[in-house]
């Protein structure tokens, strides 16, 4: 989204130009604290009442050699006075803390955009590490941009001179100086950041004072008009949003809370989360490990297999077992998933997808594990698959996953991705007293019991938990008799059991909402079908296309296995079906195979989210074809 000027620029001291939307990217060395800087800017922006979306983009290396291009860490925020659905196509303001940050991020800055560079970090050595033969601040490299060169390093050292820090620690306050300047530029408060610094460095009062001094110095630098005369401050009016209490939320937090809310709605005492560290899924383990006071049990297992194994054991024993990972770890869990399918136990498996195959690009986002989720097991092994569209949506999806898992006694795979896991957005805090309960009933009556006796409607077997007198029974991976639950190698029985396992999952389609259109009405020339975190860019693109008079609608899928029961009919009403995905084409093939619709893919496999204009261009192309 381009920065739109909604009123003529005012001039003169103390005036501000109005902007409807702005995209800022903070970029620096992975040790420069860019993620913290971006997060604090996000908090202050949310408090200023803007709608926003963020996209953290950090390297896999924890501390790559300083000054290198592969050690660059960036944080992008898109905020505005109206609806914001993506982290932004083009960067309006790039804050580059060193030459490597400039060279790796400049291509995303719109022509005419602003580059703020710390000249103090543009040393010969840093320039060389970034691959610059000459200083780009001195030649014509930045001619298409508005450049603000400041010696942030020196200004920071001056600001913190009184606090007795060493040179290295003093320079680490640079990010707060830059944050202070950007907070001034966009008319944001600093109070929350000050409180955060006081808490973060509580044990090092001199660091609290120094960081606050740097923050204030950056702010004062703008305020006292030390800025070049061509640069002014901006004003972004608060967005019109539904009334209520808000907070910012990342997909990871929302999902953790959703899983907790779902388990509470099921009336279960224990949520047992087993996990093994992997990027970008680990934060879910961290959030849940912090919820022990609510009865959550977390288990950092020795490997991915033990993580899901413990989750299955927990479900068998009457807790709700959950596990999470990213693609490579999910691959390791697939045999155990088969066990959960065979023994028909409830289980939640979260996949925070990342670019693959194999190690791939662990910190980069992708949605290439749809096939893995739907099909990726030996034998006929169906389960339910749901996907979250936005960070806030993760909350609802978490609850829904628990409902399906417990009602149908099945594993449910929840697909998120690296973008959703890390991205944050303002979230209207739901009234949890409104949440519908779906209490689980363990089987307790021994009369007529066998472990695979099915509910005639859901086809789910009873949840008979160890500790219950009279229900002692044995389950396992060996095929079992439909009528008695005992192990069976009978050929006809195996076919019957395979069919009933499939029918149980297919039947979920009767228990989920009909597929609706996110934008537009049924029938027409083109429908854009997406799933997962592509929701925002598809929505913006479809809205823009419709404003341009194009006949296009949007369908966004939460339920990927089974599909909503009206999906085939809905898609058949459109002449063309366009399926944008951050993979080499997966949903598009499942839709073609399932509904025989002429769906075509729009595939982006760069490890980065779609830009709105990329989807818009594909909409134009599809309608012109």
């Amino acid at each position: 989204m381009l920065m739109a000027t909604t009123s003529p620029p005012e001039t003169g001291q103390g005036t501000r130009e109005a902007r409807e939307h702005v995209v800022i990217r903070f970029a620096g060395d992975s040790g420069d604290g860019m993620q913290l800087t971006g997060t604090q800017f996000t908090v202050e922006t949310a408090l200023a009442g803007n709608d926003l979306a963020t996209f953290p983009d950090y390297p896999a290396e924890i501390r790559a050699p300083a000054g290198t291009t592969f050690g660059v860490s960036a944080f992008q925020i898109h905020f505005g006075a109206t609806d914001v659905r993506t982290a932004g196509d083009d960067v309006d303001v790039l804050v580059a803390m060193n030459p490597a940050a400039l060279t790796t991020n400049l291509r995303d800055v719109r022509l005419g955009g602003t580059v703020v560079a710390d000249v103090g970090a543009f040393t010969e050595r840093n320039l060389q590490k970034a691959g610059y033969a000459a200083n780009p601040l001195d030649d014509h490299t930045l001619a298409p941009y508005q450049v603000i060169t400041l010696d942030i390093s020196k200004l920071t050292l001056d600001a913190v001179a009184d606090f007795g820090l060493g040179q290295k620690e003093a320079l680490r306050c640079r990010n707060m100086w830059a944050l202070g300047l950007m907070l001034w530029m966009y008319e944001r408060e600093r109070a929350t950041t000050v409180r955060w610094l006081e808490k973060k460095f509580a044990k090092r009062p001199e660091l609290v004072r120094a960081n606050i001094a740097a923050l204030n110095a950056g702010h004062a630098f703008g305020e006292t008009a030390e800025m070049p005369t061509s640069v002014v401050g901006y004003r972004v009016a608060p967005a019109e949003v539904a009334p209520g209490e808000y907070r910012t939320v990342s997909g990871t937090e929302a999902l953790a809370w959703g899983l907790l809310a779902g388990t509470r709605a099921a009336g279960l005492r224990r949520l047992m989360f087993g996990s093994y560290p992997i990027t970008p899924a680990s934060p879910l383990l961290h959030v849940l490990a912090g919820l022990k006071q609510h009865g959550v049990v977390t288990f950092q297992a020795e490997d991915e297999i033990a993580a899901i194994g413990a989750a299955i054991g927990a479900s068998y024993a009457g807790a709700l077992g959950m596990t999470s990972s990213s693609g490579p770890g999910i691959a390791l869990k697939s045999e155990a998933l088969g066990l959960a399918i065979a023994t028909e136990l409830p289980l939640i498996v979260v996949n925070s997808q990342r670019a693959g195959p194999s190690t791939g690009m662990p910190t980069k986002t992708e949605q290439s594990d749809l096939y893995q989720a739907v099909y990726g097991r030996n034998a006929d092994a169906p389960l339910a698959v749901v996907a979250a569209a936005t960070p806030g949506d993760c909350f609802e999806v978490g609850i829904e996953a628990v409902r399906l898992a417990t009602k149908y006694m099945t594993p449910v795979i929840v697909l998120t991705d690296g973008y959703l896991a890390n991205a944050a957005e303002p979230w209207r805090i739901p009234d949890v007293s409104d949440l519908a309960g779906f209490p689980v009933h363990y089987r307790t009556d021994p009369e007529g019991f066998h472990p695979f006796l099915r509910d005639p409607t859901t086809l789910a077997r009873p949840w008979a938990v160890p500790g219950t007198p009279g229900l002692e029974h044995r389950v396992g991976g060996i095929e079992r008799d439909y009528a008695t639950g005992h192990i069976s190698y009978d050929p006809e029985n195996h076919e019957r059991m395979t069919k009933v396992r499939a029918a149980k999952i297919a039947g979920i389609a009767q228990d989920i909402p009909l597929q609706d259109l996110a934008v537009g009405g049924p029938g027409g020339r083109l429908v854009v079908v997406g799933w997962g975190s592509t929701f925002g860019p598809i929505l913006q693109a479809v809205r823009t296309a419709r404003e341009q008079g194009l006949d296009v609608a949007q369908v966004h899928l939460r339920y990927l296995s089974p599909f909503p029961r009206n999906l085939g009919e809905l898609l058949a009403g459109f002449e063309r079906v366009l399926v944008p995905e951050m993979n080499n084409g997966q949903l598009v093939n499942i839709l073609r195979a399932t509904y025989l619709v002429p769906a075509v893919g729009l595939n982006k496999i760069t490890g980065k989210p779609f830009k709105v204009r990329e989807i818009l261009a594909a909409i134009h192309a599809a309608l012109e074809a």
Partner: protein
Amino acid sequence: MTVATPPAGQPTAKDFASDQEVRWCPGCGDYAILKAVLKTLADLAVPREQTVFVSGIGCSSRFPYYVSTYGFHTIHGRAPAIATGVKLANPELDVWVITGDGDGLSIGGNHMLHVLRRNVNLQIILFNNEIYGLTKGQYSPTSRQGTRSPSTPLGSVDYPVSPGAFALGAGARFIARSIDTLQPHLIGVLKRAHEHRGASFVEVFQNCVVFNDGVFEDFTAKAIAPEMQLHVQHGKPLRFGKGDAKGLRLDPARLAVEVVTVGENGVTESDLLVHDEKNRTLAALLLGLAPPAFPTALGVIYCDPAATYEEQAYEQIPAGASVARADLERLLHQGQTWTVAG
């Protein structure tokens, strides 16, 4: 599935047998172990509904189907992980893990390592027959070097792992050994394993009549058993042989044990090592003894209890905390929030 009525009074082994036909080969050592376990459960009068048998894959792992408690026949090597989840969900359950040398020390070696070091309160019974039975006779990680099998027609070249030494190295706090055919001894060991709070590791030497018959004859054969079996007892001198004539003495210069005969060369009982279940160094020495130079040590070799994993995990969860009563309202409003007026 038929539901048996709970037995009145002191239960018998029969009360703990399920209605399923046992499907091991005739003469398999597993029958004897099953019998010993059922007798142990009956003697201890454990509540059936609180008891869970979790197994992996292999001949031994069919075990849960034959016990009338709760049972979970899982996947190859993963029983320790699944049992850990069972205990984390409900620490009150009494959980037994049934595994074999391939299941527990090859494909599941990693899980065995971690369940032992975590000290999850489980009874882990490893049926060691030094062979893969269910897949028809390949050599296993405990097979001796030179084992001829379908996959090693010229003899295996890899060195075997010693289950007891592995368990000790992993940090197990209870290690015991017995033999399938030594019924009273095995039952005694199983009762001790059950009594121990924490991960109890029991290796049972089990004869595979089809693929590895007689592999333990060098210490189990009737004729030589007294000479080749050292039955350890806490606080008692380490004696064995006919009439307990022999014993183990420490050679401090070599930090090694040697076999001596009481009454010969001035050796008296006071020269012998006295078994101490809490002595980890002694446990290492005993677990390292092997025929033909030494007898095989049997019984409770090491027992030094420590806090269990699940009790420590639950110490971090406030008593009575339940997800069903989670204060979501407070959780969601924690931290920075702002209000947009209507």
